[in-house]
């Protein structure tokens, strides 16, 4: 087995040199396609195991499709769900490129969203053109600060960001609960922890209200596209982006080349946090209109999957975010139409990532899908 493996590895390497396009195509298109197909099949198996009959399974997958791309409303919902996933996913992708495994998007989203809400209702007298952008900025800056704590700890003391960001997540839930019960944040006359509403002048305007007042697609979609362009520019067209990628690829080489490793870590974490904070601000200013306990609803964790699926590339993250947005929107339809719990989407998402992150596994399951491998097994 070991001999075969090493032979395979050597052949892969050689073939990579000979035909890079073919391998790249397989990695970028065939592996995700197979991953998605296997995840759907295993999702169906899970449903079967919990006593869901075949007709309902069929109906739920139809609902998944219809609910994500089947109508204007479905497309709008898909985009609404994709916006925060892409924004937070871009932040995480940036961190991955710099060699930082930031699990803390969830907390950064919560803190950013809370800051945007508070800024919005505190300065509600300002006009829309000033208040809305500044509220977004408040969210981004707070997210940057919150992530910056983990970055600083890593740079100054070497505390690993995986543990510190997880702890910051857990702290953020409590901090949010506490803030929401403060008299100047809590909505008047409410006993439960709910913030005051975002004033109209701070809301991201709905884009398709003229078509149907129920369509929730909001201006955050432009923020998302701008962010994709910005991260692309930052990573691949600037010196800072090069330093991120260099210190991610080889921290030692980057240090010997005279880059300030600590500073890069802090800036990369802060930028990632700013994007996650922006995602939180988008949620409260565009969809929710207020902050409630745990309003991030796991977006920060799904965003990890989005960043991995998108191979930490801004364009890839955009498509991965759209796919996950579609799964979310379709999942809700599935719950309504077929009565299958939306948690099933979580299982499918996890399975997609397993197969994406372990291309060897997909190649082992589907040897006939990959030309290189197939030749290898027959020889």
């Amino acid at each position: 087995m070991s001999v075969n493996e090493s032979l395979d590895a050597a052949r892969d390497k050689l073939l990579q040199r000979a035909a890079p396009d073919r391998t790249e195509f397989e990695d970028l298109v065939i592996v995700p396609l197979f991953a998605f197909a296997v995840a759907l099949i295993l999702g169906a198996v899970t449903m079967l195991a919990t006593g869901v009959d075949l007709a309902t399974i069929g109906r739920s997958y139809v609902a998944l499709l219809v609910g994500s791309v089947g109508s204007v409303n479905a497309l709008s919902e898909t985009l609404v769900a994709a916006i925060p996933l892409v924004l937070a996913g871009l932040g995480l992708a940036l961190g991955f490129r710099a060699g930082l495994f930031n699990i803390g998007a969830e907390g950064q989203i919560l803190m950013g969203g809370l800051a945007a809400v508070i800024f919005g209702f505190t300065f509600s007298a300002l006009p829309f053109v000033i208040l809305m952008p500044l509220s977004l900025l408040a969210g981004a800056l707070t997210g940057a600060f919150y992530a910056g704590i983990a970055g600083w700890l890593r740079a100054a003391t070497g505390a690993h960001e995986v543990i510190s960001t997880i702890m910051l997540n857990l702290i953020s839930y409590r901090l949010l609960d506490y803030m929401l019960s403060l008299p100047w944040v809590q909505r008047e006359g409410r006993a439960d922890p709910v913030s005051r509403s975002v004033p109209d002048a701070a809301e991201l305007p709905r884009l398709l209200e003229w078509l149907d007042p129920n369509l929730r697609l909001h201006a955050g979609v432009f923020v998302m596209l701008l962010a994709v362009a910005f991260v692309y520019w930052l990573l691949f067209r600037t010196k800072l982006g090069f330093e991120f990628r260099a210190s991610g690829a080889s921290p030692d080489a980057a240090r010997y080349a005279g880059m300030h490793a600590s500073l890069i870590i802090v800036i990369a974490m802060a930028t990632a946090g700013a994007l996650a904070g922006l995602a939180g601000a988008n949620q409260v200013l565009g969809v929710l209109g207020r902050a409630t306990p745990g309003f991030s609803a796991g977006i920060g964790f799904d965003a990890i999957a989005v960043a991995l699926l998108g191979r930490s590339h801004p364009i890839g993250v955009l498509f991965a975010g759209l796919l996950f947005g579609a799964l979310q929107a379709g999942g809700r339809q599935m719950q309504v139409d077929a009565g299958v719990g939306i948690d099933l989407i979580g299982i499918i998402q996890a399975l997609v990532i397993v197969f994406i992150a372990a291309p060897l596994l997909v190649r082992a399951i589907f040897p006939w899908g990959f030309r290189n491998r197939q030749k290898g097994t027959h020889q």
Partner: protein
Amino acid sequence: MNGAETLQRPNAAIDLGARRRTRIVGAILILLAAFVVVVLGDAPGDATFRLSRPRDIWVLPDLIVPAQPFIYIAAALTAFLGARQFLRGGGRWTTLSLGLGLGLGVLAFLVWATAGNAFSLTGMLQATMVRAVPIALGGLAAVMCERVAVVNIAVEGMLLAGAFTGALMGSVVGGWGGLLSAVVIGGLFGFILAALVVTYRMDQIIAGVVINLFVLGLTSYVSSQVFAEMRHLNNAPVFRAIDIPLLSDIPVIGPMLFQQNIFVYGALIMVAVSTYYLFHTRNGLRARAVGEHPRAADTLGIDVYRTRYLHVTIGGMIAGFGGAWFTLGSVGRFDENMTGGRGFIGLAAMVFGRWHPVGALMAALVFGFTDSLQQKLALLQTPIPSEFLAMAPYVATIVVVAGLIGRARPPAADGKPYVKE
């Protein structure tokens, strides 16, 4: 993007960071002392700590502490440790000073909260032990994996899987069957993790995150889809406490260590056994060799892949046992995401405990202490909002990891896949 690789820190960076770290520890301690004086300074009356319960055979008198003087002395000692650390920066003293300072801070806080009141120390220590169990087992599971150089972020998911299986199988076939199934399922996820990272060479942190996502999705799905309708499937028996004769009558220590259920005894035995195994047996030495230098181990004829599979699976079984604590050891019922980050705190306990089973247990006791402190303080009605008390263990984790990590060295090959030549 390779997260696992970043777990390694070059030695040069540690040396450079060492001086700064002692400074930071010093500054933290001075701040802590200032906090103790400013916030806790006003504490009239005595704090009474009960060391025995009315029905105990050996009754110790209550411990009565004059609150105000104690708090000022604790603050002065903390400030002294901090200043010494900040000015002289003694390398070997950093960890000890931080531990002592934090301990004094916690004691001062406890005295302040109890001032003019009475408080059962025995009850709190007993709760500390109980709450430390899942964290200690999570930490121990992570130690077993990291000693063979597999980073196991999936401890959280394995705990959750154990909790779920314990509730489901416990309801169907009874407590012992539930416990056994939880261990088996934990081992299964350990085996899956090993397969993903050893055979398919997936990034270890990604594999762990994925297992966490998967278990969370699966258990939440089943509990909303099945448990909501069939409640009898989520109603497992709970293991009661078993008193150990004679030993359980010792004051303070007896209730803490010898009036507990099988999860506490199991955790203590596993820590002892795994310490002996890792550091005093031939196979343990081989396992550690695989974690430190897999190439050398391979050359000497140790099967690196097999060793990793075996230990990660055992780690998963330990985590499965720890997960069963949440259902079979406490409430008998599974709730969505009921582990609530205990697995991650277990990872922090492993780092805090320097990749040693006993160290992980000690660290888990510290976390269990802050956890139970929060519960007990809610009863004393302190003016501090409960949210901040709930944050305390997490803040403590960050402080501890930031203060210690440079001095604790992970196994040299930790997080790296091994490819045979």
